[in-house]
């Protein structure tokens, strides 16, 4: 049997070799702001565990490097990622001097590169497996459960990002729920307003170019400026419209953030509604009219069901975009995970930045996978129905 190399595997193996032997595995800092000192795998872990990890990494790298069956590659990537996840926690516990609450242990570049390399391998395997939409959501759920279990078990508690979390656990969950409320609430508002607006634009041609142009221009206004610009009008409303202030409308805070996200969300929703409706086959429309459907019946029984996957794609764009943009809300006191990001940037405390950025990325990522799966399910179901 001749050994054949996998092209992606060569890249992965090179990253693994560099990250495992030449790059630091963890960083030790005396407190949260000073520069850190690098620790290699063998310095960060007891000899037995360190050797075990290196062995796992070498085997994982070889499995990636050679042309191996998909199942083996899947096992290698999952086992290696699990080993890395557990052992970085162990390293954190061991490197922290007993009783020292100032010291910070963070995963270093080597660790992140290893995670990247084996995630790449896992992504490649999952892509090649060509999973069904529900299976993809299943994989996501398993990964989320595994990470959740590690968090709850406390095995990562010694790591710097979780030390940041520990000192602000309450505000983390408060900002988190604010973040999600902002992203989902503005999405809901945009759907409620945008879909009818899209239908209107589809029916009234004179309106279409104008509405889409205005929405396009709103998209070009930088988010931080739009957030800021809404402070004044909302402040005016709070001061002059009876009951507005009582309803929680303020010049700064959540209200302008909500309105800004809503405005940004309108374009994808309206544009995709228009595109989706325009894509309804003429024959289907003609047939519906020929059978004597009223305009309303045609809209709800023919056009809307056929345009639904496209509208859903618009909603996916909006949700992922909103989860990201909601971080900006922190700049105008709107809350959300951005609070930690900008506080962290201000204090040059990168662990705090991570505390805000990592959940944001995770949320956006999960939202994208779930909505992609839903879109695929609705459109394949439709295709199967029409056959």
């Amino acid at each position, binding site marked *: 049997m001749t050994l054949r190399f996998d092209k992606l595997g060569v890249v992965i193996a090179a990253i693994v070799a560099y990250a495992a032997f030449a790059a630091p595995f963890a960083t030790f800092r005396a407190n949260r702001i000073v520069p850190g000192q690098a620790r290699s795998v063998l310095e960060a872990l007891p000899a037995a565990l360190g050797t075990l990890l290196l062995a796992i990494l070498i085997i994982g790298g070889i499995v990636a490097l050679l042309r191996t069956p998909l199942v083996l590659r899947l096992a290698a990537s999952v086992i290696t990622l699990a080993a890395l996840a557990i052992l970085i926690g162990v390293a954190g516990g061991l490197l922290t001097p007993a009783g020292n609450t100032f010291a910070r242990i963070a995963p270093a570049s080597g660790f992140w590169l290893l995670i990247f390399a084996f995630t790449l391998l896992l*992504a490649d395997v999952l892509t090649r497996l060509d999973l069904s939409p529900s299976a993809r959501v299943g994989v996501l759920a398993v990964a989320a459960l595994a990470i959740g279990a590690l968090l709850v078990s406390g095995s990562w508690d010694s790591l710097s990002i979780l030390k940041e979390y520990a000192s602000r656990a309450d505000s983390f969950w408060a900002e988190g729920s604010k973040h999600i409320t902002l992203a989902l609430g503005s999405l809901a508002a945009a759907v409620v307003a945008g879909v009818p607006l899209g239908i209107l634009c589809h029916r009234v041609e004179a309106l279409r170019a104008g509405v889409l142009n205005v929405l396009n221009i709103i*998209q070009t206004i930088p988010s931080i*400026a739009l957030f*800021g610009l809404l402070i004044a009008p909302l402040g005016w409303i709070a001061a002059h419209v009876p009951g507005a202030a009582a309803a929680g409308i303020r010049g700064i805070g959540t209200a302008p953030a909500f309105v800004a996200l809503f405005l940004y969300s309108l374009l994808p929703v309206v544009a995709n509604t228009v595109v989706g409706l325009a894509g309804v086959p003429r024959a289907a429309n003609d047939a519906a009219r020929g059978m004597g459907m009223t305009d309303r019946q045609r809209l709800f029984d023919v056009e809307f069901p056929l345009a639904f996957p496209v509208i859903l794609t618009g909603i996916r764009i909006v949700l992922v975009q909103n989860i990201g943009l909601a971080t900006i809300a922190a700049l*105008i006191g709107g809350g959300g995970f951005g609070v930690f990001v900008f506080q962290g940037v201000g204090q040059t405390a990168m662990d705090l930045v991570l505390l805000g950025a990592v959940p944001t990325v995770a949320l956006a990522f999960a939202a994208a996978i779930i909505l992609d799966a839903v879109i695929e399910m609705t459109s394949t179901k439709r295709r199967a129905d029409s056959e």
Partner: protein
Amino acid sequence: MRAWLPALLRLALLVLLVVFIASPGWFEPLLRPLTENGAPAIYNQGSLLTLTLLHLRTVLVATVAATIVAVALAILVTRPAGAEFLPLSRSLVNIGQTFPPVAVLALAVPAVGFGEKPTLIALFLYGLLPIFENALTALTTLPGNVMEAARGAGMTGWQRLMKVELPLSAPVILGGIRLSVVISLATATIGSTVAAKTLGEVIIAGLISNNLAFVLQGGLIVAALAVLIYDGLSAIERYAARRMGREAE
């Protein structure tokens, strides 16, 4: 007459933008009502012209780098030797698009420190995706009989790429660059939260000192730049597409 109107409006916008950046003082009376307690109406901690040029330079550098890398990658994964990477590159692009720009920016700071560098990295990474996606779409949906004719005429792989595939893909790739530039123009403002010299500085100064005039002028300059550049690139794209007898998107 009506056909001239959009062009005229754009020209007016361009003139207005140039005049505003060159001598913002003339517009002071317009912005004055937005300020309180005698705060300055025109950004006074630096020249708007310099900031605009720095802003554009940052976007340009990031976009050029992103274009080179994205197109090179798209070419690589559409060659027989790189075909193995095609499905993976598709999923990576899909995953990459879920990374919020602020997160990319913030995560880049630990690696390279404050200033222009993290902004360039964030813009570069974020700009890669639309260009890569468009280049990939263009290169994988070339008309089959044209490619067959190119091979049949005896073109080498390199000649096919340079003389047929890239010219035919140009309009769609340009579309990706246009999207990327518009996203970058807006995202670059966030760079000022990590001390990059961009127009975001003006907006953030306004947010901090509660000066609406600053927020407005910073935001409008960026928006005007985006609209003008978007239109300019669209026109180039339409020209390229028309020459090929294709309808622009």
